[in-house]
């Protein structure tokens, strides 16, 4: 079936198997393997992407459901060869260990900062509550999001 949608700013028009989930389309068809599949049932958030401005699990969305919509994946965070401030903050804060959950964490955090540029710690914890990490203990991830928020605020001041 024909699928037209916007991926990381680029308009795509593809013929796809309508039985694909969005994560299958990203990873297996488009070879965009930054988005990870963890549980495959909406529990872990590893596959989080941003769909029309909000964080969703790409394992819980059929590929055909993004027709006419805008998808942002972790590959779309980098702009002109520069890491997003959020990615830089994750690195600088040591918020990454094995890294498997990181793309999902980044996308949940990005969705939050797009909506709420200066979130409270409670808002950060709430926004990230659908993402599991089995390495870091979350503290450094929370700190990274706070740091990215401060970097953005300083940048726009």
């Amino acid at each position: 079936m024909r699928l037209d949608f916007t991926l990381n700013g680029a308009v795509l028009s593809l013929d796809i198997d309508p039985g694909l989930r969005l994560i299958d389309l990203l990873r297996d068809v488009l070879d965009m393997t930054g988005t990870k599949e963890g549980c495959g049932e909406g529990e872990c958030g590893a596959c989080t992407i941003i769909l029309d401005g909000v964080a969703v699990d790409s394992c819980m969305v059929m590929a055909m459901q993004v027709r006419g919509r805008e998808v942002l994946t972790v590959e779309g965070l980098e702009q002109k060869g520069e890491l997003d401030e959020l990615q830089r903050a994750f690195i600088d804060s040591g918020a990454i260990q094995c890294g498997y959950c990181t793309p999902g964490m980044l996308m949940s955090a990005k969705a939050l900062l797009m909506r709420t540029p200066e979130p409270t710690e409670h808002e950060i914890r709430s926004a990230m509550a659908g993402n599991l990490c089995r390495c870091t203990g979350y503290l450094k991830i929370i700190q990274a999001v706070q740091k990215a928020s401060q970097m953005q605020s300083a940048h726009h001041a």
Partner: protein
Amino acid sequence: MPELRFEMPSNLPELAECLAGAGDDTRLLGGGTDLLLQLPALRFQGTTLIDLSGMRELSEMRFEKDVLEIGANVTYARIAQDPFIRSRIPCLAAMAARIGSPQIRNCACLPGNLVNASPGGDAIGTILALDARVRLLNGAGAIRECAIDELVLGIGKTSLSRNEAIIGVRIPIPASPWNAYGKIGLTPRREVIIANVSLTMVFEITEPDRRIRAARMVLGSTSPRAHRVSSAEALCVDQVPSSELAREVAEALKRDVAGTIGANPAFQHKLNDVRGLALDLFHELFALEL
């Protein structure tokens, strides 16, 4: 292997047309967060999915005089964040805010929870407590309404025919915001919690004497389907909220749960859970010392 088929109606007449042709292998796709768990089987069976996500008219919330109509595509995130719902129907906002995770709430909608008909379905109890009615479209293009307890018949069982789709839920707007929702889950996570016990309380209270005229109390996750507890409701009628009343209601709810779960040792923790939940909701609503 047969291929999964995908139909994409964009308005009600097109949806009716899809429903008219629906067979036993047809499923409705809304938010998808329940249905996609079954995707491997659906693919294997060559299922036809009718995708509602492109139907803009189902993405609206309409406030009429005394009724709030929530379209089938309205996500829990929107319900949880809506200022009017938060102020006037806080039980609905609280329920929506505790479904799944932020990612799930950005996709999932009321109908999935209703037709999934799980004993732990959070929305079912709250919709029942609010005396809401479900709007259904059939393959002939006709629309009917039914109460939630006419729709949800048991675990995984509904009265929905294969040629019908839920297109919205009509909720009478409570005259006052004296309503609350709570749940206790089985896991220590703050999100993606499946309810061990859920409770919705809706009070009709007269001012200025602050007397309870009527109460609706619905328990979820303690029986095959969410149910009202008339013994607890009756205790409240013509009473002024008090610590004593809260404790009596909590005990009545506990007795109801005891009657449902019997001696099954795996469920005994629900007794204390429901008591605590009832006291929490009374405290939240009426700031009582408990």
